[in-house]
Each structure stands twice: as C-alpha cells, then as structure tokens.
C-alpha cells in the first residue's frame, strides 16, 4: 500500500492542497470577521453575504466555477477580465501543466467555506472582554498592536478549532475535485487527493475493497496523529497562563 505510487501521490496532492487552502481560508475568514465585527452600519447584511455560500453545495459551486468563471472560452468571466487587460485566454482546466486547475479548486472551496469560519471567529471575537481593549487604549496601544497582543492571543482556542477543522476538511476533499476535474465521465490521472484515490480504487473498475480499506486505515492514523500533534503545539503556551 505504502509502496503504491498512486497512493503516495494522493498524499502529496493532499499536502499541496492543504498548503494552499488552510492558511488562505484562515487569514481571509479571520480578516472578514475582524472587518464585520467592527462594522456598525449594515453589519448583519455583510455577515449574511459572506455566510450565504455556506448554503450552497459543492456541485453548484463547481458548475459555476467550471462552466462560467473559469470556462476556457473567451466568454468565461476570468478570461473576459484578462481580455480587458489585453491578456490571452487561459485554458484553466484542460492542462496538467501549468497547473491552473489548482486556482479553480482552491477559490471554489474558499468561497464555500470562508463564511463558516468567519462565524466561528466572530463568536470568538465577541467573547473577548471589552475591558482588555479599554486597558490597551489607556496604554496607548492601537491597530496592529492591539490585534497582535490582545485579539490574537484571546482567539487561541478558536484558532485551534478552525485550523483543525480546516485540515480535516481539506483531507476529506472530494466533491469539488470530482465535479470540476472530471469531464466526459473520466477523471485525469493527476490531482487525486486521498478520497478521490479511494473512490476510484474501491469503487472504480477494480472494486478493490481490500486496498480501499487498507488505505482508509492509513488515512485515519495520519489524521489522528495530526490532530494530536496540532493540539499539543497550539496549546503548549497555555501552561504559562
């Protein structure tokens, strides 16, 4: 199993995907939460707009991304925007190299997920005691300093939860890969994260349940180890408090 190059490739694909998606989702949802939290006028409107995609399914998002925004033709939105600047159309999904398809997959997931994590951060921000900010204001701290020394440390529990959920969800990515990359009923040999690999191994032409289950066990072990390690690293500082 571990010597199977297709299985190892699926782990590498997951790593590449996680390296993209985990930090970007984390930063953007935290940023959105900070912006929305400080807004007085139309706060619930902005919150709703960012949160609305959560109700959307991956299939519907994949349809819009594949057939409208990143369709390879000139009338796709991304290529139309490039055209306004005189840049040639890019075949977003039909090439393995350069891997433009990553941009399509990552932005689709970002759009779907950011609202969910923004809500978690908003809840965390609202739990921070206002007296901490008052004390900081008396000390003359502003902007970035307040964020760095008050908001961020106070959000440690929320941040841990968000990172863990992001990682687990990236690990389970299937819907957008399957729906965006599969064309005319066939899936390309590259860009197969673990679940896509398992799907085609266990349920494809081979019906190899043994390999499928062995793969599942290895994946479970990996995710359990990651969860424990991450919990340790992020909470290490707690003992001093």
């Amino acid at each position: 199993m571990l010597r199977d190059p297709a299985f190892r490739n699926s782990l590498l694909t997951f790593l590449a995907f996680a390296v993209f998606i985990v930090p970007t989702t984390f930063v953007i949802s935290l940023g959105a939460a900070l912006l929305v939290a400080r807004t007085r006028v139309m706060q619930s409107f902005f919150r709703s707009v960012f949160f609305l995609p959560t109700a959307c399914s991956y299939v519907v998002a994949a349809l819009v991304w594949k057939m409208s925004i990143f369709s390879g033709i000139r009338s796709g939105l991304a290529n139309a925007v490039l055209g306004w600047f005189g840049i040639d159309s890019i075949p977003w999904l039909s090439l393995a190299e350069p891997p433009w398809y990553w941009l399509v997959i990552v932005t689709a997931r970002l759009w779907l997920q950011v609202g969910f994590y923004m809500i978690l951060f908003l809840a965390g921000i609202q739990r921070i005691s206002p007296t901490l900010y008052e004390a900081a204001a008396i000390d003359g701290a502003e902007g970035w300093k307040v964020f760095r020394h008050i908001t961020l440390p106070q959000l440690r529990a929320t941040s841990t939860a968000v990172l863990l959920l992001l990682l687990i969800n990236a690990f389970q990515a299937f819907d957008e890969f399957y729906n965006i990359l599969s064309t005319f009923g066939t899936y390309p040999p590259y860009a197969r994260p673990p679940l896509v690999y398992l799907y085609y191994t266990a349920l494809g032409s081979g019906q190899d349940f043994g390999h499928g289950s062995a793969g599942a066990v290895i994946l479970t072990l990996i995710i359990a180890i990651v969860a424990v390690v991450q919990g340790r690293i992020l909470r290490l500082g707690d003992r001093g408090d």
Partner: protein
Amino acid sequence: MAIVRSKRQSRITGWARYSALVAAALLFLVPFYLLVRSAFMREQDLGSPDFHWLPPVWETSNLTGLFDNPAIPMARSLLNSGLIAVTQTVGVLVVSGLAGYGLARIPYRWSNAVFYTITATLLIPAAVTFVPSFVLVSTLGWISTLRGLIIPGLFQALATFLFRQFFLGFPKEIEEAAFIDGLGYWGTFWKIVVPNSMGFVAAIGTITFIGSWNAFLWPLVIGRDQESWTVQIALSTFLTAQSVQVSQLFMAALVAIVPLLLMFLFLQRWIVEGVERTGIAGD
C-alpha cells in the same frame, strides 16, 4: 492636535474598512449573479465569445424545459432530496436528542463509556469510513434504494455530543418539578425539556438539513440508478458528462439551491448558532 489627527485617521480607516467590505461582498455575490444570469441565457449566447453582463434575451423556457425534458429526472431527484433531507433531519433530532438526554441525565453504569465511545468516533473523518460503510450497505442489498441513502445518516455522533452538552446545562430544577408531578424521564423529556429547547433543536435541525440536502459522496456511491438520484447527483452527472444544455444545467442548479437560500434567509439566526456550536465542539 493629537486628538484631531486620530479622528481624521479613524475616519480614513473607517472608509477603507467599508470599501474593503463592499468590494469583498460584491466578489462573494458574483457566483450567485452568474448562476442566475446563465440560467436565463440562451445556449448560443452562453457559447458566444463575448461576455454578457445580462442575458441579451431572457430565456424562461429553460425552466419549463427542465421539467418537460425526459432526459433530466429533475422532479424525481428533487423529491428524493426532499424526502432524504426531511427524514434525516427528523431522525437525527429524535435519535441524537434522546441519546444526548439519556447520556446527560439518566444515571447508568456505562454511560461514560458509551459517551466516550461516541466521542471517539468523531476523531475518525466520516468520509474515511465510506468504503466499509459501502460494503455493509451493499451486503444488505440497499444499493440504489432510499433506505440505503437515509438510514446510515440517521445517527450522528456530533449531534449526540452537542445535545448531551446542551442538556447538561438545562436547569435541573424544572425537571425535578416535573418528576414530582409524576412524569418519568420520557414524559419530562417530551413535555418539559423539548418545548424549552426549541432554539437549540432548530439550530441542529437546520444544520442537519443543509448538510443532508448538499451531501454528495454517499449519494454518489449509493444512488446508482436514476430513480435514486438526489438533485446533487443529477446535477453532477450532467456536469461531468456534459450531456445536456449548459443553460438548462444552470437553471437546474438554480432550482436546487432556491429552497436552501430561502430557508437560509428565514432561519439564519439558528444556522449561525448551530455553526458556532459545531465549531466549539471541534475545539
């Protein structure tokens, strides 16, 4: 002087913040706009080399054609999705609600062991169990049946965990009063606890409903025959096979998300609460 400057500065940052928010909000609405626009475009306009901000001709026949086209089992798949989402939501609320209450309140020798066993399964990503689950369900002969689609989703460890935590915080005095009046655990649960927990029930219910309606991998694996397709599988099949008109596909997607968007707008408060609790559980 310093105060004046900081006032002006805060006004500038205020404007910057609003500009960023408005820009980001517009960006987030673009996909919805494209979905609606494309659903009302003619096929030849969608394929034309020019980008259209609005449909040159508003084509409403995409909607009627969707339900007349025998190649697209739209009505059937919507019905399947509705049936599955409703039964799973009710099932999860009843099963996990009762289990959570039992674990929180009924003194029982093994209740901690049961609770930790349930919690431990949360560490295993649900999707990793899909191969063994598939083997089990296919052995039972439930492939392409509503049973196979619904029953495995009737119990959720996360919902059980959340219900237990919630009921632990329920004011015990009210329950004790009900006990004195002669209600057992069963009666207390249904007559006292549930009516006073409707906000929490709504939060878990809406989250479950959305997850069930949007579920993809399990319906893909189990729903082999067209009669057992959910609306997501119908959309995905035509998207990946590219066998129907694109404009009609957009219309189908629009029809599939309208019920959820409406529900979302009416129940947003409960959804937010449900998400917050789900996130805290992940901590």
